[in-house]
């Protein structure tokens, strides 16, 4: 008897919860998806879509009612952690992946190579931001500012001084690193979330300056006609730019084909991404990397051990900015045009999402997340209008469900046998 009373109050409670949730859902849906605003000439009228409201409410009601029943039935999803290999096999596997990555574009289509190049740019940016956010634990919402600095440094050097991509490349990284250093210096003593907002402010200031300094940067139109990188001085164009010059296809006696330059750009992006991966992989094992991690875990403990938090933070911030600068220069050379539109806050959020989704600090995770977040939208083009909506949702769900990311970083540790 007692048992039935509890179950009936359970049902009543569940029903009440479901009805409340449905009413709330209805209120949320009314101004957004039901009462649709339509412009009729100068007047705005309302075209109600009652069916959307009904289906939405029904869905919320059913889900909310069944949730207590379904929740324990769900097996707790266990995502794979990083597979552990012996050093020898690990190296062989890495080599195999690398060879596959180098070889496939020669057989792949132009479109997929293009997407792969874009993905590799994001891999590089993700790895750069991973140093700042993942290793050192400094939330940087203005990372795109350094990306823009790199891109514009190359564009301006070409536009005003006629420098080629390879001549400008070291300066792009140096310039972004300098920006990171100068901007980081005053603000890095701020605590976590204040730092996030200040970096966001910096990112926006850089973009607004690029828009408004029309004389220097070309304003909203940006700078166009940037040259593609050359292969050891051989331009990959149909005809040499200067009289008597040799182009890539003439030098090697090949038929001119525009796919060559696409493959070349892909290989370059791969090289840059690999360098970023290698460098950051080494850095985290060096004393400086260890102190980044120590700082992330506990700043006060770190300081009492005699480490200078300012220096440590600044080094992470500057290095992260440098990689963003290289990424930006390559991006500018690949597009052939830079304009401020490419460097909005959404781009920062996307790079941050890559780091967070992959698992802060986990390099493999960042690479996987970069691939997922750039390839998925390309595959689901018919859903492109839902892209950003889903993107925001993924960020929330990931934080609630698995804040450590898809492939969380593993600490290097040795267990002492007892």
């Amino acid at each position, binding site marked *: 008897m007692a048992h039935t009373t509890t179950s009936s109050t359970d049902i009543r409670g569940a029903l009440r919860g479901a009805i409340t949730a449905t009413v*709330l859902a209805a209120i949320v849906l009314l101004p*957004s998806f039901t009462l649709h605003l339509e412009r009729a000439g100068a007047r705005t009228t309302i075209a109600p879509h009652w069916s959307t409201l009904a289906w939405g409410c029904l869905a919320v009601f059913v889900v909310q009612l069944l949730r207590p029943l379904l929740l324990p039935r769900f097996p707790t999803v266990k995502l794979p952690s990083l597979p552990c290999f012996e050093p020898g096999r690990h190296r062989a596997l890495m080599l195999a992946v690398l060879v596959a990555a180098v070889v496939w574009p020669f057989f792949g289509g132009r479109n997929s190579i293009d997407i792969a190049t874009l993905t590799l740019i994001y891999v590089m940016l993700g790895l750069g931001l991973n140093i700042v956010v993942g290793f050192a634990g400094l939330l940087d919402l203005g990372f795109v500012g350094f990306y823009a600095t790199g891109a514009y440094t190359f564009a301006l050097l070409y536009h005003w001084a006629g420098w080629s991509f390879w001549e400008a490349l070291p300066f792009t990284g140096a310039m972004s690193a300098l920006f990171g250093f100068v901007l980081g210096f005053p603000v890095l003593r701020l605590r976590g979330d204040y730092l*996030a907002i200040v970096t966001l*402010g910096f990112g926006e200031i850089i973009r607004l300056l690029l828009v408004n300094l029309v004389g220097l940067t070309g304003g909203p139109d940006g700078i166009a006609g940037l040259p593609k990188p050359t292969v050891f001085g051989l331009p990959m164009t149909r005809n040499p730019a200067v009289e008597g010059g040799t182009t890539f296809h003439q030098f090697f006696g090949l038929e001119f084909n525009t796919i060559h330059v696409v493959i070349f750009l892909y290989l370059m992006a791969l090289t840059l991404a690999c360098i970023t991966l290698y460098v950051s992989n080494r850095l985290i094992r060096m004393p400086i990397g260890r102190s980044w991690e120590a700082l992330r875990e506990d700043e006060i403990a770190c300081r009492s051990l005699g480490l200078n938090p300012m220096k440590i933070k600044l080094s992470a911030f500057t290095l992260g900015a440098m990689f963003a600068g290289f990424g930006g220069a390559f991006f500018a050379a690949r597009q052939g045009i830079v304009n401020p539109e490419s460097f909005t806050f*959404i781009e920062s959020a996307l790079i941050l999402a890559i780091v967070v989704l992959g698992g802060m600090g986990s390099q493999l995770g960042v690479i996987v997340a970069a691939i997922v977040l750039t390839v998925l939208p390309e595959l689901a083009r018919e859903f492109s209008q839902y892209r950003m909506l889903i993107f*925001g949702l993924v960020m929330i769900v990931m*934080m609630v469900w698995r804040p450590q990311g898809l492939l969380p970083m593993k600490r290097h540790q040795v267990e002492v046998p007892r």
Partner: protein
Amino acid sequence: MSNFLPELLQQLFNGLSLGAIYALIAIGYTMVYGIIGMINFAHGEIYMIGAYVGLVTLSAVGVQGGLPVWLVITLMILIAVLVTAVYGYAVEQLAYRPLRDSPRLVPLISAIGMSIFLQNWMALGQGARDMAVPALIPGAMRFGGEGGGFEIFIPYARVLVIAVTVVLMVLLTLYIRNSRMGRASRACSQDMHMANLLGIDTNRVISFTFVLGAMLAAVGGVLIALAVGKLNPFIGFIAGIKAFTAAVLGGIGSIPGAMLGGVILGIAETLAAAYISSEYKDIVAFLLLVLILMFRPTGLLGKPEVEKV
């Protein structure tokens, strides 16, 4: 030179009405930060949704529906407040409550996700284009302007913005000072754990804070929609950042600080637009944010925070 004073007065008025809106939004930031110490990044989007709900209500009632204008505006504000209260509640329940005890950055990232989600939610529902809001309160007061001098132009819609804001600020101050819930929320912002031990339902206080912040932002949204005459799903982002700047300027966690910060920021921005260049007004706001955080992170009326081990 004779035009200097009237022009300055005009700019101060414009700045004051802009600052009033910032202050309304900033209170939401400052209250949430005061209680759970997180930056509710999605707060600007709540303001945008408030503006949309106002427009939907206005269109549903009908501009020429025969109702008196004051009733229409009251309806717009009331319905916007009710709907955004639900939004504020839902956002807290879905995106922040499960993360209550996680490291600081986790709820911040979730909040950024929520901000992106809400922007695109509205853009999908109502279209991403600018929507025009019919001018309910046309006309303006004019002073001066005789003999070719500068004419001060004070639109009634902007007067309404300032008037409503002042009334709300007074009500809010009284409510926080005297009501049971206001006392509970002040107790929570001093020491959440202790308040809990003393029998305050802290979860309710947190929900209440989000709801109250959302309501004030919604009023700001409706008022700005009426004053500016157009809106789109992306107005919340910049307004949110600026309101956050205002909250930091006044000292985050302090309600009078948010009001003061909003007014100062609004005036600074308008003066920069008038006397430097209108393209640089956003830069001025961001620079102000950076400078305050660098030199006085506690803001004008804030108390310094000591981190204990």
